[in-house]
C-alpha cells in the first residue's frame, strides 16, 4: 500500500510541477486582457480560447459590470455582419460585445443569454441591451440542428463547452452547474495549462493543413469573401443544404419561434432592452427559399406582440439584399458588414444614448425602413 501511495504522490508532484510550468507559459504567451472592457468575441482565434463558443463560455466574466452594455447574439451572420469595433466607435454610451455564434439556433441564443445572466447580478442585468440577429435558418430544433456524429444528439456548442471541463454535468433536466458561476474566473485560471496545450494542438493542426492543402483552415479570409461570387451550382447546393438542415420541406420550427418570444419576454420583464434585427439574405436565396414566408409571418406576429413594449425595438435591413454583396447564401461581405454595423449603431444610438430609452414605439415591419446612415451597395 505504501508503495502505491508513494507512487501516487510522486506522480501528482510531477504533474503539479508540469502544470505550473505550462500555466506560467500560458500567462506569458496569452496574458489576461484588461478586465471589464468590451471584447470582440469574434476574435477568439487570437486568444487562448480559440473558438467563439469557448470564448463566450469561459471569457464571459468581462460582462459582469454595471456599465451599459450592448450584447449582440445570433448566428454566424451576426458574428460576421456586425463589426464590434465599428459599432463601438459610433456608440459612446455603451460597451459593445459581439457574441454571435456559428450555427446557432434560437435555443443556443437563449443559452448564451443565460450564460451572460449567470455572471451578472439582477441590478447589472438592467444595463444590458441584447441585440438578437435572426433569420429563418435559426429556427431549427436542436435535435435536428445538432446531430453530428461527434456530439451527443441535440447538444449545442454551448452545451459542449459546459460539459467539456466539467463546469456542468448532464442531468435528466438538462445541464446542472458544478462550479458556481462566481468561481468562473478561478476555474478558467485553473484550466489555463490545458487551454494552452489545446491551443498548441490546434496550431499544429493548422500547420498540417498548411502543409497538406496550402492553407491553414477551410475558413475564407475577408479578402477572399469580398471577391466571392456564387455560381448557379453553388446556389442549388446551398438550397439543398438548407432544405436538409431545416428538417422540413417548408416552414420554420414553431417551437423555436415560441422560444424566441419567451426569451424576449423574459428579458423585457427583467428590465433589459431588446433589439431584434431581421438579418437580410441575398435576394436569390430569399426568393427561392420555402422558409421565407413562414419566417415573415412569425416575425410579423412577434413584432405585433412586442412592438408596443417599452425597451423593445427592431431593425430591418431588407433593402440590403444585393446578390453580389454576400459571399454565400447568408454571410455579408466586408463592405456590406460595414453598412450593417453603421445602421445598427445608429439605431442603438437613438435607442440607448439619446436620453429616451423608455419611449414607446409602434414597431411594425413597415416602420423598419433603414435609418439615415449607411448606403445601399
Amino acid at each position, binding site marked *: 500500500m505504501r508503495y*502505491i501511495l508513494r507512487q501516487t504522490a510522486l506522480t501528482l508532484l510531477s504533474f503539479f510541477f508540469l502544470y505550473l510550468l*505550462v500555466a506560467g507559459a500560458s500567462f506569458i504567451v496569452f496574458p489576461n486582457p484588461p478586465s471589464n472592457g468590451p471584447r470582440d468575441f469574434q476574435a477568439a482565434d487570437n486568444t487562448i480560447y480559440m473558438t467563439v463558443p469557448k470564448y463566450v463560455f469561459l471569457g464571459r466574466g468581462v460582462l459582469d459590470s454595471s456599465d451599459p452594455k450592448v450584447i449582440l447574439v445570433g448566428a454566424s451572420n451576426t458574428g460576421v455582419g456586425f463589426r464590434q469595433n465599428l459599432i463601438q466607435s459610433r456608440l459612446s454610451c455603451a460597451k459593445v460585445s459581439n457574441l454571435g455564434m456559428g450555427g446557432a439556433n434560437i435555443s443556443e441564443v437563449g443559452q448564451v443569454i443565460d450564460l451572460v445572466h449567470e455572471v451578472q447580478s439582477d441590478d447589472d442585468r438592467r444595463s444590458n441591451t441584447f441585440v438578437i440577429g435572426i433569420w429563418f435558418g435559426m429556427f431549427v430544433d436542436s435535435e435536428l440542428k445538432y446531430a453530428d456524429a461527434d456530439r451527443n444528439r441535440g447538444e449545442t456548442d454551448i452545451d459542449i463547452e459546459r460539459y467539456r471541463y466539467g463546469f456542468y454535468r448532464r442531468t435528466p433536466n438538462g445541464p446542472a452547474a458544478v462550479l458556481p458561476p462566481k468561481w468562473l474566473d478561478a476555474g478558467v485560471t485553473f484550466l489555463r495549462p490545458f487551454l494552452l496545450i489545446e491551443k498548441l494542438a490546434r496550431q499544429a493542426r493548422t500547420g498540417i493543413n498548411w502543409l497538406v492543402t496550402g492553407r491553414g483552415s477551410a475558413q475564407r479570409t475577408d479578402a477572399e469573401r469580398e471577391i466571392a461570387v456564387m455560381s448557379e451550382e453553388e446556389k442549388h447546393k446551398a438550397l439543398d443544404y438548407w432544405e436538409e438542415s431545416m428538417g422540413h420541406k417548408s416552414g420554420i420550427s414553431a417551437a423555436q419561434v415560441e422560444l424566441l418570444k419567451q426569451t424576449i419576454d423574459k428579458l423585457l420583464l427583467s428590465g433589459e432592452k431588446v433589439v431584434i434585427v431581421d438579418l437580410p439574405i441575398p435576394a436569390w436565396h430569399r426568393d427561392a427559399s420555402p422558409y421565407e414566408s413562414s419566417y415573415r409571418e412569425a416575425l410579423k406576429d412577434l413584432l405585433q406582440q412586442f412592438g408596443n413594449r417599452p425597451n423593445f425595438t427592431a431593425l430591418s435591413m431588407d433593402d440590403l439584399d444585393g446578390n453580389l454583396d454576400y459571399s454565400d447564401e447568408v454571410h455579408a461581405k466586408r463592405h456590406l458588414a460595414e453598412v450593417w454595423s453603421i445602421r445598427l449603431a445608429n439605431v442603438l444610438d437613438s435607442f440607448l444614448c439619446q436620453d429616451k430609452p423608455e419611449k414607446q414605439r409602434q414597431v411594425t415591419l413597415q416602420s423598419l425602413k433603414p435609418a439615415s446612415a449607411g448606403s445601399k451597395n
Partner: protein
Amino acid sequence: MNLTSPLFFAFLAATIVAFHISESLSYRRFVLGTANVIFISSYLTDFTQALPLLAFLLLGYACVSILYVRKSPAILASGIVAVLAFYIFLKRFSFFEALGHLPFPYLSIGLSYILFRILHVMIDVRSGDLVERISPLAFFRYTCNFLCFVSGPIQRYQDYNVTDGKELVPLDPSKVYEAFTRIATGYVKFAVIAATAQYIFLYLNQPLLQATALPPAKLCLIYATAASLYTIYLYFNFSGYMDIVIGIGSLLGQSLPENFDKPFSARSFLEFWQRWHMTLSQWFKFYLFNPLLMFLMSCFPAPALTSYLGILAFFITFLVMGVWHGTTAVFVIYGLLMGAGASINKLWQIACLERLGKKRYRALSQSAIYIYFARGLTIGYFVLALTCLWVTEPSQLNSLVIRLGVTGVLGAFILLGAVFAMVSLVTDFISERIAAPISLSAIRDGIIVRNLTLAGKMMAIFAVTSLFHKAPDFVYKAF
C-alpha cells in the same frame, strides 16, 4: 461507469485503498465482490434492469452445479444449448426476432464475455479440468470481475482463482511504477490516439455512408483511408483498454492475461489472430476448433484428409467468431470473410508445403520480400473485412460495395496492402537502427524523468480528451 469519468477514478482509488487495508483473504474477496456490484450498478437506473443478468448468471451457475454432480455429455450439451439460447434471446439477434424480447430495458453490457466464462467453466467441469467446487460468490467474482466486465480479457477460472483476493507477488516500487505507466499508456492509446483516429474517421465516414457522389478514385481513396483509420481506432481503443485493466489488475493482485502481441507484425492471417484479441482466439481454439476438428477427424479418419478438415474447422471457427461480434446479417458476412481468410491462409500453407517442401517453404517465408508482402496482404484483408464493424446496416454495406465496384474494392485492397507493407518496412528499418545512447538511458530511467514522463502523459490525456466533444467509449463494449 465510463472508464474516463472522474467517478471511475474515485471508485478505483477507493477500491485499491480498501483492498490493501487488510491482508485477510475473505476481506479482500468481499472488497472485490462489492466493487463488482458497485461497478455494474453504475450502468443501471433501476434494479429491474439487472434482473436478466442475474437470471443469466443463475442459469450458468445451475448448469455448472449440475455438471459437478453428473458429468454427462448430454447434460453439458443441454446446458450449453440453454445458456446459448438465453444469451441469444437477451442479445436480441436480428435473425431471432421471432423469439421476441423482454418488455423492459435491461443491461446487456458484458453478456458476451460472461457467456465465454460460463461456457468455459461448464466444459472444464465436465472434462475434469476443473475439479474444485466454485462457490456462488466466487462464481460472481469471476464472471463479473469489474476489470473484465466490459470488454474482457477472457481469463480461465483456474488462472483467476490463483489470484482471487490474493497477492501472490508482493508489490514493490518498480512494480507499482510499471502499473501506473501501463495505465497511463493505456489512457494515451485510448483517449489520445484512438479518439483522434475516430474523430477523423467519423469525418471521412459521412460521404461514404451518405452516398455522396464522388469520382471513383477519390471514393476508393477515402474508403481506404477511413477503413485504415477505423482499424487504428479499434486497435488503440481495445489495446488501450487492455493496458488500463491489466495495470489496475496488478495493483489489486490480479494477473490478467495479455490480449495483444504486436498484431501488425504478423506474417499471415492465422498468425495475426494469434496476436489480436488473443484470449478470444484461444477460447475459440480450445472450445470450438479443437473439439470440432476431433469430431471431423472421427467422422473422416483418413490421414490424407486431416489438413483439409483443418481448413474446414478453421472456416467454421472464424465464421462463428465473426458472427459473435454483432447481431445483424452484416456480421455473418464478417464471419464469412474471417473464415475465408483463415481457410485460404491454411490452404496456401498446405499448397506451399506440398509444392516446395518444408525447407524451401521456410526459406521463402523468411525472405524479407515475402514477409512484407504477406504483412501487406494480411493487414489489407483484415482492414477491408473490418468494414463490417462500421457499416453495420446491410443496405448501407450493399450500397457502398456497389458504389466501389470490384475495381474500387480491389484498388483499396492493393493500396492498403502496399501502404502497410511500406510503413512496416520503414518502421522496422528505423527501429532496428535507433537506440538511445547509454548516457541518455540513465537519465531516462531516473526517478525524476520517469515520473515527469508519466505526468506528461496524464497532461496530454486531459488536454486531448477535452478537445473532443464526446467522451470516448470502449468499442468492444458493443460486441
